[in-house]
């Protein structure tokens, strides 16, 4: 399955990418994170503390153990600080 991965705020900066395309068979966000960590040292570093990371699947907030089957856009970012 082909998905677009988006990164925001310090995740974007640490990974050095705003987005990337990925071919994956991961069934959950956690599995996907496992794959992303292997892509580069920067990915590994950025994903070292999952407690500091939030995820949205197709623009809806989701849990890290959420299934991603059929998803087209998965975004990773720190806790939000709007307002």
């Amino acid at each position, binding site marked *: 399955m082909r998905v677009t991965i988006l990164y925001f705020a310090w995740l974007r900066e640490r990974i050095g990418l705003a987005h990337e395309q990925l071919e994956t068979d991961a069934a959950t966000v956690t599995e996907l994170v496992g794959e992303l960590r292997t892509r580069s040292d920067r990915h590994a570093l950025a994903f070292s503390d999952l407690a500091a990371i939030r995820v949205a699947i197709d623009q809806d907030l989701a849990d890290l153990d959420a299934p991603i089957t059929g998803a087209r856009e998965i975004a990773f970012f720190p806790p939000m*600080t709007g307002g």
Partner: protein
Amino acid sequence: MADIRVQSEPFDYGQECAAFAQAHSDNGAIVTFCGIVRGEDGLQAMEIEHYPGMTERALHRIAAEAAARWSLGGALILHRHGHLTPEEPIMMVATAARHRADAFAAADFMMDYLKSRAPFWKKERRASGESWVAAREVDEQALSRW
């Protein structure tokens, strides 16, 4: 029903308050909130990043949830992104209702959800460098009120 705006341009808080009250003058109660960049600790500028598409979706959902919980005549959420300087308005919400309790609760609720459920991230710039604003535990805890 809700007026949702995400923009990099400055907005005029007073004019928005006037226009909102005018547009909802058949309601008895108007509540507005405005968030302003605090220039403390030598803050020079703020950059607000957001997630286009998801942002609007999240704000519409927050306004819809407020309208489902309270009896509202109208609601506005306006949030800037991009470059801001101290004392500039960052964002505002406004609610209109027949009764003040609904207008207050809905505005308070929308602010709490917007703080930790809408995809905005603030980065502060000082002479000492740039840093991302950390989420505050108290903001996450605030959601348990609702």
